[in-house]
Each structure stands twice: as C-alpha cells, then as structure tokens.
C-alpha cells in the first residue's frame, strides 16, 4: 500500500514538474527573456587591496585616520554612523584629548533634554556618545535628500555584496551614461536627481558624486588627496567601522588554529595508538 501510494504521489509531483518544465522551456525558447539594462551595464566591483584583507590582515591606522577625516568632512553631512561611538576612535590611534575634541567639535549634536525646561534640545557630544546623526529622523533625512534615504554607514561594508571594494568602486565609478545605454534602454537613463554609476545595482544612484574632485580634504599626513586615494581611505575606514574587532579576530584565530592543529595531530597519533593491532 505504502509503495503504491508513494508511486502515485511521486508520479504526480514529478509529472507535473516535468510538464511545467516543458511549458517553461517552450516559452523560454519562443520568447527568450528580454535583456535588461542592469544585466547589460552593471559592473562587478573593482579590485581593492587593503591592509585588513586576508587572514593576516591588520588595520593601517594612518589610513583609517585619513578615511575618518573623509567621513567627517564629506560623508557625515548626510550619512549617519550610529553604531560607532567617539570613544571607539581611540582605536584609530587618537589620544583621549583628541577624541574629546573631535566629539566636542562634531558638526551634529547629541539629542538631549534641557534640565531647566524639560524640552528637547541638543548638547555637545561626549566621548561616550555615539556619533550623532546629521538628521533627526528618517523623514528629516529624506526631506533633506530629495526623498532618498542616505543609509547609515556603520555596517556598510558588511551590508553590501562586494564589501569594501564595492564602496570603493561606487565612489570612483561616477561617469556619463554611455551612449549605448541611451540608444538601447532610454528608460534606464538617469532621471532628474539621479546619477549614472555602473557599480550601483540599478545603475542610477541618488547620491551625487561625493568625491568628485581631488583635494576635497587636506590630509594632515601629507598624502595627496586624490579622488582615488580618498575613496580607498574611506573604504578602509568603513571596514573598521563595520568590524572593529577584525584584528583581534585574526590574532585569536591563528592562536586557536595552531593549538587545534597540534591537538589534532596528537589526537591522530593517540587514535592510531589505540587501534594499533586491531585491523579495521
């Protein structure tokens, strides 16, 4: 009985799937799916090599400080960084006083309550505060940005396929839409308030080219602030904001792996030992 029932159920599912396949295949051949603009013009991220890459990766703190400067002077006007606290910046090599000064001079302020009146107000951030957002809430952020929401950047290199290379490619990928795009996919041409960027999923990004010209920031360590350099630095910085524990993870990982390899080697010898003389 079970096998007869199973046979019928199997016949039903498999049969219907093969029928579906047949119908789908005929449709696929007679009306092949149309090429989309994304498929034709979207590009995979460019190569980017950072000091934090790979199992031996460590942060280049000088670069992180430069990237932080780019974030502070350019990105932070629109993008929040709500999971990173000023105190965390000490890990980039800033002293306690520098961190305090960075917090106190931050362009945005921390929401607070006026102790005299109880009304909502703002105050200067302290090192223990999280980096305040440039906008009070999502609605305000959208209103200030043509209804596009600038995403929070704390986790951005982990929250996008392609990670840091994607961020770097996006920042350096702004260009005029190719003539072929206008010819083949006029609908995919950037509309008002949008910018063509082949590294962005749907090719048209609301953010205007943020690092459009060289020298937007002036690095204190004398590095030449080209667009490419700034994009690299801020990508490196965003790797750190997304995973400040990366260095510790790599270090712990090697210690654990070396221990495990030795222990497993001993375990193998013990196993051979125990089984010595017992054929199996």
């Amino acid at each position: 009985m079970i096998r007869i029932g199973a046979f019928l159920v199997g016949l039903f599912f498999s049969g219907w799937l093969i029928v579906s396949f047949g119908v789908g295949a005929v449709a696929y051949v007679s009306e092949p799916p149309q090429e989309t603009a994304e498929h034709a013009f979207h590009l995979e991220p460019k190569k980017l090599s950072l000091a934090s890459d790979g199992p031996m990766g460590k942060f280049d703190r000088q670069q992180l400080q430069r990237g932080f400067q780019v974030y502070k002077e350019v990105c932070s006007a629109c993008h929040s960084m709500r999971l990173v606290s000023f105190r965390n910046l000490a890990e980039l090599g800033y002293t306690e006083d520098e961190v305090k000064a960075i917090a106190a001079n931050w362009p945005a302020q921390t929401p607070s309550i006026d102790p005299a009146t109880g009304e909502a107000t703002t105050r200067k951030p302290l090192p223990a505060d999280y980096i305040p957002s440039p906008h009070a809430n999502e609605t305000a952020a959208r209103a200030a940005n043509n209804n596009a929401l600038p995403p929070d950047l704390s986790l951005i290199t982990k929250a996008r396929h392609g990670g840091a290379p994607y961020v770097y490619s996006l920042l350096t990928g702004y260009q005029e839409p190719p003539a072929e795009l206008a010819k083949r996919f006029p609908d995919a041409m950037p509309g008002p308030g949008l910018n063509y960027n082949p590294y962005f999923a749907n090719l048209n990004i609301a953010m205007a080219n943020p690092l459009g010209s060289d020298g937007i920031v002036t690095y204190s360590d004398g590095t030449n602030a080209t667009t490419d350099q700034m994009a690299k630095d801020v990508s490196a910085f965003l790797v750190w904001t997304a995973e400040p524990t990366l260095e510790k993870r790599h270090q712990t990982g090697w210690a654990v792996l070396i221990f495990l390899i030795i222990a497993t080697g001993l375990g193998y010898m013990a196993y051979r030992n125990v089984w010595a003389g017992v054929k199996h």
Partner: protein
Amino acid sequence: MAEQVTMNQDGTAAIESDGVRRRDFINIAAVSFAGVGGATVLIPLITQMAPSKDVLAQASTEVDVSAVEPGQAIKTVWRKQPMFIRNLTPAEIDAANKVDVGSLRDPQTLAERTLEGKTNWLVTLGVCTHLGCVPLGAAQGEVKGEFGGYFCPCHGSHYDTAARIRKGPAPTNLVVPEYEFLSDTVIKIG
C-alpha cells in the same frame, strides 16, 4: 588502555611491551591538550559577563554644581548608581568637626572625606553601606535622620553631616568616590 591488549584477536599483532610507555604518553598528551583547550574556552565564556565596553565608557561623569547653594544637595548618577553632592553650610561643617572621631564606627574626619580647600563639598555614593538602598536626605524636604545627614529608611541607618554612619546596622560611612574639581563649578567623578 587495558582493553587494547585484551581486544587483540584474529591475527592482530601483539603489542611489544617496551612500546607501551611511549604510547601511553601520547594518549596522555592528547587528553591533556584537549583538557587545556577546554579550559581555555572557558575564558571567553566567563569574561563575557564582565562589564562590556559601552558600560565601562560611562565610568566617569562630569557634573556642574554651580547652582547648588549651601545647605542644598543634588542627586546625580555615576555608573548607574546615585551620587549625592552636598554643599555643606558652616553649621553643618562645625557639627561634623565636633564629633569625637574615636567614638565612630568608621573613624574618619570630614577633612579626610572631602578635598582640600573644598571641605564644603561632600561627594558620596547614594548607596547605603548596609544593603544598598538609597538613603533619604539629599532632596529637599526628605528626612535627614537623627544626625542631620542622611537616613536610610530600609533598615534605619543614620548618617551625619559628613555622611558617616552614626546609628543603625550599616558597617561603614557612605563611600566617597574618586573625584576632582575640573574648575570651581565642575566636578569630574571617576
């Protein structure tokens, strides 16, 4: 490892007697390694319960005390615990200094409990040293106890104007945390 020898059957080689020692050593080494590894794993499992980085980051607080008149006190928060900051009147300072220190349960002078030149500022934790309730006496209109300082209603501990234990079950004076004056009006606690 006794089984090892008894289970040798069916054409399997017998163990040479001098090999036993070296083999036991490897087995012991392997088990010891596993033990050390297991013990090491306990470190993160235990330390994860210690205060996290964001909790430790709030370890110091700055308080503006410019609005506290003599005779008044404010309550503030340090490490999620209440802090009493009291501006003592000359009468209260006198009362505290008159006490015979030797007669106290926890002998301390007012000078030892305040900063030099700032003896009118009494900064203590608002946590009764008995079992951790918040004593009364900091806010206006609260009972100050028999000695004009603080009074803990939970189990009846009375503190004097230097926040020293005078009567009741508390074993020690209210704790004075580490603090400093950043300016004449700003105190940094912790």
